[in-house]
Structures are given as C-alpha cells and as structure tokens.
C-alpha cells in the first residue's frame, strides 16, 4: 500500500496544526477511502477527525438557527425527530442517498464535501462525454462537460440558505453552502471554495428555515429505485398564507457542479396561488440557460419536469410520515397534509 501518516488530533487546534500539503481530512471515510482504493486520490497524511470534541451535536442556537456539528452522522441527523420535523426535506434528501450502511458511517461535513463522480476514477478518461451523459451538468458550465455535484443533502441545504462554518489557519469564517462548490478549471482543480487546510466545524440553518416545514419536499429521479445517484432532483418548499405563496424556495440537484438555486423562480412564485400553471412557469424559469452536452438534451426536460413535480408535492404539503421510499417518484402518496 501507499504509506501515509495517520494522525488523530483531539482538538481543533491540533487538527489545524497537523495539516500539510497533501493531507486529507478523514470523516466517515465513505468517499475518501473509496477514492484512495481506486487510486483517484493519494493523500500523504490522513487526519482523522473522529476524536475532535464538540462536533457531534445538533443544537438550536439563541438566535433560532440550527447548528449541526460536522461529525454528526447522516442517519443520525435524518432520524432526529426534531430536526426532521423542522426540516423535513433535508431529512428526505439524506434518506434518499446511498445506502443505510453508508449513511450510518458518513458525516454531514463529508457529505457536503463529497467528490463528483467522474469517469476518470477508474483511469485516464480521454473523452469527458464517455459513458452516461445523464450524469453531466447542463447548467453552470457554459456548455463545458462537467460532472454534477452528487450530494442530495446539499440541495435542500442550499434552498434553505444554510451556511458552513469554517475554521482555518486565519481564523473562522462562514460560507453559504450555495457558494461552497465550484466547477474545477484547468488552473484550479478544486471542487469547493475551501482553501486547503480549512476545516468544516458545523453546518447552520438560519432561523427562518424551519418556517417551510409544512410544505417541504425533496424529489429524486434515478435509474433505479434506491442506491443510485440522481439523474435530476429538486428541493421545493414554500410558506402558504391565506392560500397564497408567501415565500418559496426552489433548488435543483444533479444539473450543475453545485446545487442550482433559482431566485427568479422563487420570486415569481411569491404572492401567487399555488397551481400547475404558475409552477410550470417557475420550472421553465429554473432551466433558463441550460445547455445540453453529449446529447443529454432530455436531461433539461427531465429537470424541468422534476422541478414542477417537486413544487406540486410541496404545495400539497409535507407528509405526516417519511415515505417508505424517501424522495422517490414511487414514494407512498400522502393523503392529507401533515401540517395543515
């Protein structure tokens, strides 16, 4: 095997001090270890974060925001009754991803940092369009072929305005999840805007995010019913007051190198009566500027349909119980809104 250092700091300061060029943070390892095994990445030092104190809590802060420690497990977060009650589409998104075993091991910070599923994982791909072009971005790349951000979790986080708390050699800072991911370029191969050596301490959802709980859905279209990355997905939520949409959020997943939030569509929905026509217009707006690559025109159409359906589902109301197949096209249909 390739030798690497393995260090296990017991404080954030120690962790930061342990960073060096070529190091990698180790959370649950569900993504990083796979990549190490295939040779896609070869860190010279693994910094195991599992012993860091104070990073496993889910807490409501004094200002009403919700703070999720970086080492909280995916399953743990999705199954936390308070969290799932306040942010049902986040829970639904998590539970639609990967498998039970992986969700148990994976951390929330690791989830937001997961690597795009690129074809070169298995060797030097010469044609970026090789294989399944349904996994390539249609937005945010100016038509250049690029892998999409594969996270389900990030999609509702972006919709709800979540931020990432970062600590680095120069202190702490917050980055909106919406600004965390980027498309790699020839000059800068990073998939995120983090500077090497920066560490995620926590994710934070703003106080107003829980206000969408009654109308909040994540929908994921995929090639098989479970354990598959999204072809397209959408997080849609709204506050409905007196039969009108007081505020709406719409973010598309698996269409761009980052979750694709569509402010124009959200603005359009504000003040409208929920209904198929206005949702169709919003969905149309959401795909504005989309460009097909490698013949994946159908994906633009599918993303639009996904957005429309997610809006429709959100307007109908959050189900009282998590569907048996979360975020599935075939999820158990809700009879009555849970939060009327």
């Amino acid at each position, binding site marked *: *095997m*390739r030798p690497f250092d393995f260090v296990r700091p017991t404080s954030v300061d120690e962790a930061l001090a342990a960073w060096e060029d070529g190091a990698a943070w180790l959370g649950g390892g569900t993504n990083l270890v796979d990549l190490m095994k*295939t*040779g896609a990445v070869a860190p010279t030092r693994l910094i195991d974060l599992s012993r860091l104190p104070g990073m496993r809590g889910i807490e409501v802060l004094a200002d009403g925001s919700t703070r999720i420690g970086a080492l909280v497990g995916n399953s743990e977060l999705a199954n936390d009754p308070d969290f799932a009650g306040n942010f049902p589409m986040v829970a639904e998104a998590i539970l639609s991803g990967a498998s039970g075993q992986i969700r148990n091991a994976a951390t929330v910070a690791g989830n937001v940092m997961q690597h795009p*599923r690129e*074809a070169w994982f*298995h*060797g*030097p*791909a*010469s*044609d970026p369009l*090789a*294989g*399944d072009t*349904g996994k390539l971005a249609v937005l945010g790349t100016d038509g250049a072929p690029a892998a999409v951000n594969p996270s389900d979790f990030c999609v509702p986080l972006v919709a709800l305005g979540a931020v990432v708390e970062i600590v680095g050699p120069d202190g702490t800072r917050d980055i909106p999840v919406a600004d965390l991911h980027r498309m790699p370029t020839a000059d800068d191969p990073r998939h995120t805007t983090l500077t090497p050596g920066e560490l995620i301490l926590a994710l934070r959802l703003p106080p107003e995010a829980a206000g969408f709980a009654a109308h909040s859905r994540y929908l994921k*279209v*995929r*090639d*098989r*019913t*479970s*354990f*598959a*990355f999204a*072809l397209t997905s959408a997080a849609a939520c709204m506050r409905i007051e007196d039969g009108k949409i007081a505020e709406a959020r719409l973010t598309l997943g698996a269409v761009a190198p980052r979750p694709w939030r569509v402010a124009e569509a959200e603005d359009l929905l504000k003040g409208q009566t929920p209904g198929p026509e206005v949702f169709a217009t919003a969905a149309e707006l959401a795909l504005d500027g989309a460009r097909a690559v490698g013949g*994946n025109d*159908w*994906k633009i*159409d*599918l993303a639009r*349909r*996904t957005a*429309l*359906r997610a809006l429709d589902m959100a307007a109908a109301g959050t189900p009282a119980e998590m569907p048996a*197949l979360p975020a*599935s*096209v*075939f999820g158990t*249909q809700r009879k009555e809104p849970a939060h009327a």
Partner: protein
Amino acid sequence: MPDTLDRTIRFGSNSGQPMTRRDGIAKVTGAATFTADNTPDNVLHAVYVPATIARGRVTSLDVAAAEAHPGVTHVLTPANRPHLHGDPEAKPTMFSFRIEVLQDDTVRYAGQPVAMVLGETLEAATEGARLLAPTYEMAPPRVDLDRAEPYDVEPGGFGRPTGASHGDIDAGHRAAVKSVDVTYSTAPQYHNAMETHAIVAAWDGDKLHLDVPTQALSMSCAAYASFFDIPVENVTINSPYLGGGFGSKAVPIGPNILAILAARMTGRPVKLMLTRQQMFGPTGHRGATRQRLRLGIDEDASLTVIDHDSLSETSSFDDFHEPAAGASQGLYAAGALRSVHRGARLDIGTPGAMRAPGEASGSAALECAMDEMAEAAGMDPLEFRLKNYAETEPGTGRPYSSKALRDCYLQGAERFGWAGRPLAPRQMRDENGLLTGWGMGTALFPCPMFMAEARATLRADGSALFETSAVDMGQGALTALAQIAADSLGLPVDNVEFRAGHSSLPDGGVAGGSGHTATAGGALHAAGSDVIRQLGEMAAADPASPLHGAGNASFVARHGRLYVDGDDSRSEPFADILSRAGGADLVGSGSASRPPETAAQYAMYSHGAVFAEVKVDPDLCQVQVTRLVGAFAAGRIINPKLADSQLLGGLIWGISFALHEEAHHDPVTGRIVNADFAGYHVPVNADVRGLEVLTVHEDDPHVNLLGIKGVGEIGIVGTVGAIGNAIWHATGHRIRRFPIRIEDLLKA
C-alpha cells in the same frame, strides 16, 4: 395430476420436498470456506495490472519502481514471464478460449493483464502494481458495434452458432398479409458473481493443487494440466462452494494461469483474487446484439415466417457470438423459420456464456417482436401466442419430449389476472396516476445433458456415502443432488453423506446449461441403483435372507430395507444383508448421459410464460416493475424451494437486463467507464417486488430417467420481453433497446 413416470424407477420421499439447503448454515455463519478464504503459510499475493486502453501495445513498465517497493517479491512481465507449455492462442478443446498470459506487449482490450506483481502482502502487491505505471502506444479502439463491419459467422460449435432455416423463407414473407420488421438492441453485460474470480495455487513437484471456484471440475483439471504439461491426475482442484458462477467460472481465465505460473516460478503458494473492477475484462461477458426480426402473419393470424438475424460483438482475436437468433427455433409454429448469426470484431474481451446465453438476448427481441405482431393483428398477445402454438417442433417436426407450455400460459395468466387487459396501450392508471401496463413473454430453454459419474457406498450401519465432483454455485446442488442420491437407496436424506466439489471424486460433469441436476443426478441415481442391484444379488443368494431365491425379481429400496418388488411381505434391512456378508461397505458406481438416439428423436425444452406489470410515471418516466408472475414447466422438480429460488433469481435478472445492466465504453481509450457497482447497475431490493413463481406439473418420460429438465436459466428468458411489452402497454412507446432507461421514454 397422475404421475405417469415409469413406476420401476425408485423414487422415495426425498425428491419433491422443499428441503432447506444443507450448506445454508455454514454459509451464513461463515463456516463455508470459499477459495479466497484459503491463505496457506508462506503465500504470495498476486495483483495484476489491467490495461487501461483497448488497443495498442505497452511501451514501458516501471519494473524498478515496483521491485523497489517494500514487500514486493517479483514482477512478471512479457520480458521475464516463465515458459508456458500450452499455447494461449490455441484452442485445444471445444470450450477453450484464447487467453492473455503476458505472451507479448500487445493490448487487445481494456482490462487485459499486462503485468503481475507478487508481494508478501496484498497491499504491497497492490502498490507494486500501481507503481508499474504502464505507458502505451494507443491505436483507435473499435468499441462501437454499430460502426463495426459485420461478417457471417462460420458455424463451428461453441461460440460459433449454427444458423437454421426451415421452410421457404421468401414464400413466408410473400404470404404475409401483415408483417413487422424491427431491430432490437441489447447491451454488453458483465457477469458479476458476488464472489469474484479467485485462485490459490500451490505446486508440490509436478503436482498442482488449486483452490479455485469452477463450474466444471474435471474439464478444468484437463485444461490446467495441458497448460502446464503435467498428467491430468497431477492436478487437484478444491472447489467446495462458488459464490455464483453464471457461466463465467466454467473455463480457465488468463489471470488464473498467470497465478499458477507465478507459483511455479517462486516455489511458493500464490493467491489471486480479482477486484470488482477487474471483473469487466478477461472473465467473459454477454456480448451486445443488434437483432433484426421480420415476422409475417396470414389472414388467420398464423405466422408465415420468423426471420431472425442477430449481429453480435466478439473480440478481435476469438469467437464467441451470442447465439441469440437460435431463440426463435423450437417455439412458434411458423411456416418458415430462419436464424442467422453475424458477428463483428471489437477491441473487447471475448464474450462468453452468461446465464441463458442466446435465449436471454434472443428472447428479449423475439418476444417484443411477437408483441408487435400481435398488435398488428389486433390480437391479445396471449391469444396470438396460443394461436401459433407449436404442437411439434417447428421446422423439424420432431415431437416434444413433453410440453406443458399451454398450462404455463393458462395458469400464469390466471394467477396474474391477465383477463380483461385492454388491447390498446396507455389505458390503465393506478390510484396515484401512474401509467400501468401488462406484458408477457414466452420462455424456452433447452434441456441438455452432459456426462457425469458417481459413486455410492452403502455402509454396514445402513448409512450411505455418495460422491461426485458436482458443483454447488449457490443453486443448491449439494442439497438437490443429495435428495436424488438418498432416494436411489431409499434412505432418508439425513442418512446420506454427500461429497462434491473436489476433483478427486468421480467426474460430476459441468454445472452449466441448466443440465447439472439432470446429469449429475442421473449418475448418482445410477450409482445407487448399482448398489441396490448388488445388494439384491447378495440377498437372493443368501439362504439366511428372507429375500433368498427371489432370483429374477426386482428389488425396491425403502426406509433402509430391501423389498421384493410387489411383495411387501418379503424384505430385509440393508444392514442385516451387509453384516451377514462380513460387514464390508458395498460400493456401486454409475454414470449418466443422454443416448444419442433419444436426443435425435425428441425436441427437449423447458417452457414458461412470464407476465409483467409495470408502472411508469407519466411525466418523469421512471419505471417500476410491480409484479412478475412466471409459470414454468421443467419436468420433475427435485426441490421446489431451491427451484423457486432459481426461477426467482432468473426473473430478477430479467429486470436487470430489461432496465439496468449496460457497460459503457470510452470511445477514445475503449475502456469501460462504469466498471463498478456504482456505475454498473443491477436491481436493488427496492426494485424487486411482487415476484411469484408457479411450477406447472410436467411428466417427461424421455428427457432422462428422472424426468428432470432444469431450472437454472429459463427464469430470465421471457422476462425481458414481458417487461418491454408491459412498458409499451403502459406508455404506448415501443422502446427497441435494452436496458430501457428514463431518457428513452422521455425522448419517445
């Protein structure tokens, strides 16, 4: 229904019982030892470097870097690879493939071994393999079947399927008042047994011991012996369990030969286990096809012609053409019937037999084309198939040895609730608004028998030992064969010890072609019968036996006693007969194969009918198979529980074929870009629901002594077409490629 089998065949209380597999507890507790569980002392771990291009040659390997890595002991390259007696480019037997064992620096497909590293640990060997960092001179790979140059396949046995033509094909086309002319595509699929290929090789002088999972112990011994120029009896193979075979583990693969060479070179045991990614290359696969089907019917909706032309991919250096067009022979009563095979050479590993080779792919296209023909005729698909039901084998006119297909159709349709199905598509919705469709397909699979031998030993205590080198690859052979064996001696199965999975035993034949239970079972039955015959002679000649003087009467064994047939008042326990004779074990032997005259006289097939329900989201086009009912007639069912599992597994593979499995090649390098389980999809639990299997009673007095037809492969056949047809019925869209994906429906 009455059992019409010859009553002189002994059949006791074990066969027909849904016994739980005897090896189940050992498997779920980890006590069962699979090949890679063996790590002998002083073992070296082997890791090979797979080519990352599909065509060209290796221009450099950084051997020095690999050798310098701690723990790396040896690096095998074409430059230093020891001499191999057998020519890897030769095809010494009917079932041989050309293999890559570092004979030169040529790369013929991605995934081909280009070097092998041995190390004291798996990690060292893995890193050594990475450090070799091959460079290549790359030629443009030919990996697109649609751009390849087709040629006519020259018939020549395994991998070079014979075409067939019966009746006047042109006249059949001319006589058609309605016809369909459609082309269906199937994708490259790769066997991915849970247990990847593995081998542990150890030499003792010129004796070779192998732990290796193989579907064909005796054949493998011969193949390995010929590669290394040693007598076949010098090769020992231990293969007690296989974690799945599916046709991939029937013939030696190049990496295994390299591991054995490495063991001889180093004088140490060598262990190799392929990674999941390495299962997409040198281990065979189901080649992609393009199948043109031209069907015609007369005014009466009788088929005037089935004209099936299959183009299939093979490698640039060897022949395995999917015998897909053969699936149109033997099934429907068409006036004229033609199967043609064409091939095209690509820079891929040589395809091979993958569960239901030929029938799975061929039936997918045929059953959809039949559905299109039924639609053109304005008929219900089941009614159309019944209209064209063949009472004798089409073309040859041979009688079927048995054919309960009509019962399969009717019982399956009843169970599924087929009646009332609207003829037109896109007529049904469920309570959630999902488009709902019903489709069906016919299943057909031949019933080959191979050759097998077995030994039965009756012990003085009345218990028995049966031995044959049969193979349990998960299908339950260790249990079903033990049931047959026990019945041949009239013993409870718990009194029978059954040894299999080792080359020192009598040749148990091949676990393939759905013929293992019939063949190895026949041999076991014959061996048991031989014991009974000897026991009868002993008793008849023994004045102290109640059976004394029974002379020419036949004997029947039941519950550990020997009876005079038809006279229950005269019997004696086995143990008493043996103890008076001195208490020695009584050993019998037997073999089984099909007499050529029977094979010529009868058409022998298992049959089935599969009914599928799918639901499709009308906007998002995601497909879910919500119900599958398969009714199968496969002769005598030895163990209904295991048979059902085989058939259910087939149905699930049908889902996989219809909706999921597809390898994608990079057009520039030619390598497969989705060579793992994240990218190469098979169904997950949530995709598999509402499965039901019926086995229809069928007595077959001709297929073999025990009336067994086999259930290993037929479950896939018919299912793929049924799902494709159900998707058409749900949506109105006829997708003529498999797997059918969301984008196909979205673009339709």
